[in-house]
């Protein structure tokens, strides 16, 4: 393939405003490809890692993938420190600088709009966990089979009621946070296999807020006081990964 002939490919991390590099040197491994007032930040990667023939295997190598993904975020995060960033999804690969320029040219207006939208903003992540599992652990052992079944049924009813109640509380949480954010997105809660946390995650959200603004964190504090049965965890600030996808809509 011509794409791999040179032995290197251009991996794009993000789009930034051209000129932003002036305030923060990119470092020698990163390349800036400019078209007009926007620029793509990219790096050259070996085709032996990212070529079409090897990438599928790499993607299924969890250790490799985790390293690559962390590196992607590290670069994007560094760019966030010096201005507006529109993160690209993992694996944006072009064969050379010219191809990258053509790509940027073709979507230049869309990226300029996306940059305007997120400029001066960061993304905060909010994960909410059930702080405890609903008790019943210290009850005496069941006296009979029927007792056991009745307890099972009662436990099931309790769980259903608790679940409805949790749903109500989380709606309230999200609606209140939307009032102190510019935008908000709900994602699927992460599985325990991913989080390594024994508690069930019941909410996984992201909010777009002005950089340096503490209103959302303050509201989370208040919500945490009001809902002792829920555990709140804020993460970030992140580049606005969750708020660039619909930029062209």
């Amino acid at each position, binding site marked *: 393939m011509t794409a791999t002939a040179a032995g290197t490919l251009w991996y794009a991390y993000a789009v930034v405003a051209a000129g932003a590099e002036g305030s923060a040197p990119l470092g020698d491994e990163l390349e800036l490809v400019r078209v007009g007032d926007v620029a793509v930040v990219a790096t050259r990667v070996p085709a032996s890692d990212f070529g079409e023939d090897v990438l599928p295997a790499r993607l299924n190598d969890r250790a490799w993938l985790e390293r690559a993904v962390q590196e992607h975020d590290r670069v994007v995060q560094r760019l966030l420190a010096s201005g507006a960033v529109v993160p690209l999804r993992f694996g944006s690969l072009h064969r050379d600088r010219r191809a990258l320029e053509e790509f940027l040219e073709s979507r230049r207006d869309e990226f300029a709009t996306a940059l305007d939208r997120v400029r001066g903003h960061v993304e905060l992540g909010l994960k909410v966990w059930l702080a405890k599992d609903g008790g019943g652990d210290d009850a005496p052992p069941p006296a009979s089979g029927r007792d056991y079944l009745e307890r099972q049924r009662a436990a099931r009813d309790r769980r259903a009621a608790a679940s409805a109640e949790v749903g109500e509380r989380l709606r309230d949480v999200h609606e209140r946070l939307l009032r102190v954010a510019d935008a908000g997105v709900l994602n699927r809660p992460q599985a325990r296999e991913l989080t390594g946390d024994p508690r069930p995650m019941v909410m996984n959200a992201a909010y777009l807020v002005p950089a340096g603004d503490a209103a959302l964190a303050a509201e989370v504090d208040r919500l945490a006081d009001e809902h002792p049965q829920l555990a709140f965890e804020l*993460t970030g600030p992140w580049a606005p990964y969750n708020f660039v996808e619909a930029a062209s809509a």
Partner: protein
Amino acid sequence: VSGYDVTSRPSVPGTASSGPAPAQLADVLERVLDKGIVIAGDIRINLLDIELLTIRLRLLIASADKAREMGIAWWDGDPFLSGRRDGGALEDRIKRLEAKAGLEDAQER
């Protein structure tokens, strides 16, 4: 306790959460693999590969029934709350990707 400093990274300890802070890796994976603008590069095959991989990550996520039981899917069926994400079956997603042949994934918001 609202000493939240939005200029620092990584991972702010939850202002009110107790217990160990979960690894940030899951958050990074979710964002870098599943968010951000999708662009079609010269290596088109990898878009689908990545999509398959994110599907695998999703499969690690609690099954729908279990999710409902735990109150996790509380916004399902509420278009306002569910927003633009989480729109439907994996099948649709794959079809859409194939149809677009790696073009930008600019669905409804």
